[in-house]
């Protein structure tokens, strides 16, 4: 399945330690992502969840080496299948991207080229990385369109993106990402632009493919419902940091960080929140991240804030569950 020899005895596909992303702005250095660490293994789904501007998309672009020119990345470790991506040449990263690691974006209409057929776009990535002639590439494209549940795949190859509905386009994007059998798939809000019934279908497809193919899936979303249903582990991001990380069961059953708890209380749940009842809210707004940042970035919005929140806050952990808060446990 893989052209790259297994460099590691364990199944870790992606390992990140202390990844930071800065953006140069006229007002100074915007510290958009700060010291983010996580790992994801073969056959595992990690969800990164957070609200707009929390740095979840920049984190994924930093992994893929696709950051915009104004952004710069630093990390202690960034390795894919044991290979150091920090030291890798741009050429090497290009060879890995689309082959060993692939990405699915939110808006399939902007991510697909309207001037080329589905077949062109699907085979391009395969020919680039694997060569072997157009016939073999087409065969692979038909195979994958079938895998993502598209009927009459051979005819689909002749179609242009505008001839497909949003849900079908996203299936094409998924097929394209899987053409070379990547070990790591990063999906950035893959279902957000879609209708609710289509969203459920796409997520189910992703979950099934992830299991069948044993890929490591990093799914980025703002939707806690999606996270709960698809994640093995969750990383909650706030203002550029991971504030809590753990298994989906633990994080939803017993959130340790006040932000996670606030976020969960904000969503209406049919059958649980009363019609017409009040939803939980998080007071205040996200802080500006330009310049020096000290202490817990959530403290100004936090109902449990104390004086020591202004100083450096250490990460606490119980087993795999980690969170960054002065409180061992939140008051009920």
């Amino acid at each position: 399945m893989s052209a790259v020899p297994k460099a590691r005895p364990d199944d870790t596909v992606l390992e990140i330690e202390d990844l930071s992303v800065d953006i140069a702005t006229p007002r100074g250095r915007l510290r958009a992502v700060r010291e983010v660490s996580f790992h994801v293994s073969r056959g595992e789904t990690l969800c990164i969840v957070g609200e707009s501007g929390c740095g979840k998309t920049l984190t994924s672009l930093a992994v893929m080496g696709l950051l915009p020119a104004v952004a710069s990345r630093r990390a202690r470790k960034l390795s894919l299948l044991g290979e150091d991506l920090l030291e890798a040449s741009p050429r090497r990263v290009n060879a890995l991207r689309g082959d060993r690691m692939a990405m699915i974006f939110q808006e399939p209409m902007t991510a697909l080229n309207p001037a080329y057929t589905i077949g062109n776009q699907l085979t391009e990535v395969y020919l680039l990385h694997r060569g072997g002639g157009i016939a073999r590439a087409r065969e692979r494209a038909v195979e994958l369109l079938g895998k993502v549940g598209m009927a009459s795949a051979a005819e689909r190859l002749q179609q242009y993106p505008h001839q497909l509905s949003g849900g079908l386009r996203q299936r094409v994007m998924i097929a394209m990402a899987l053409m070379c059998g990547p070990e790591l798939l990063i999906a950035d809000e893959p279902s957000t632009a879609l209708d609710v019934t289509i969203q459920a279908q796409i997520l189910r497809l992703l979950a099934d493919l992830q299991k069948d193919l044993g890929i490591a899936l990093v799914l980025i979303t703002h939707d806690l419902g999606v996270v709960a249903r698809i994640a093995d582990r969750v990383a909650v991001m706030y203002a550029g940091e991971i504030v809590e990380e753990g298994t989906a069961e633990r994080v939803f059953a017993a959130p340790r960080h006040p932000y996670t708890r606030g976020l969960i209380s904000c969503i209406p749940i049919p059958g649980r929140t009363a019609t017409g009842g009040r939803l939980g809210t998080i007071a205040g707004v996200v802080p500006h991240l330009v310049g020096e940042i000290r202490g817990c970035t959530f403290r100004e919005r936090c109902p449990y804030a104390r004086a020591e929140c202004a100083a450096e806050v250490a990460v606490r952990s119980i087993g795999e569950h980690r969170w960054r808060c002065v409180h061992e446990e939140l008051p009920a």
Partner: protein
Amino acid sequence: MTLRDDAPMLEARAVTRTFLLGANFFRRGRPLHAVNGVDLAIRRGDVLGIVGESGCGKSTLARMLLGLLAPTSGRIMLEGEDLGTLTRRAIARRVQPVFQDPYSSLNPRRSIASIVALPLEVHGIGTATERRAQALDMLDRVGLPKRYGDHTPGQLSGGQRQRVAIARALVMRPEIVICDEPTSALDVSVQAQILNLLMDLRRELNLTYVFISHNLAVVQHIASQVAVMYLGRIVEHADTVTLFRTPRHPYTQALLASVLTPEPGLGVPDIGLGLAFPDPLNPPRGCTFHPRCPHRMSRCSSVVPMLTHEQGGAVACHLYPPSGQAQAA
């Protein structure tokens, strides 16, 4: 029995809106039936949720309820008066909109206070000072400190902008507010604030809402009755409790099944729908939902099911033949 117990505040009677796509002087164009024979009645103080996926006609319906678009056929009645006979201004005094995108619905060059005061200005109400005072009052009511009055929209967050849009809708003291996906562009924590605000305002100002959304969890939270639309038609209509407890139309059932509640371990549901959302320009014959429907029968592809009313609700599906009629096809 119908849904109407007392006189409705706002009513749609057999409303249809057809657009002719690609029409010009020489060509008639292809008809798109965006809204197709919709009957609705909203009582004073009610919150009517309209749910459906993109292209189902919910926004076209909203524009007709606002009097911004005339129905091709059928009538919209505002407390018994045909909207077609009322002037734009008379309608605007009583029915106001809140739209989805608070970035494009606010003029970026005007101050917040003047944006909120604009409806008063248009209707020639009060002096400039009075209008400003009223606008600042309304900002206060929607939870924006008065000092924001002199800011411009660019200085505000998405949630704050949506508060401004709500203040602008309410400054005329309308009776009905049509909210078209008012929280879809917002983060979840901000969405919760806006939903709480809308509910508080409804109680305080005795408002009637039409709340359009694709998010069923949000609709369940805020609406007292729900209409489900599919390809221009209402396929099910019931009070919120009934609809969520016993959804009857297969499409409603699929919509409910696709709500992903934050409960780990349940996995992503298989909603059992076919892949293809039909082409609205060339809708399927019979029941427009039949190509995706897991329960389709032979008659579904030829006979359009009528919306049949029963206690507490109405459904348009051949699985539920009108009472007194034989089930045999």
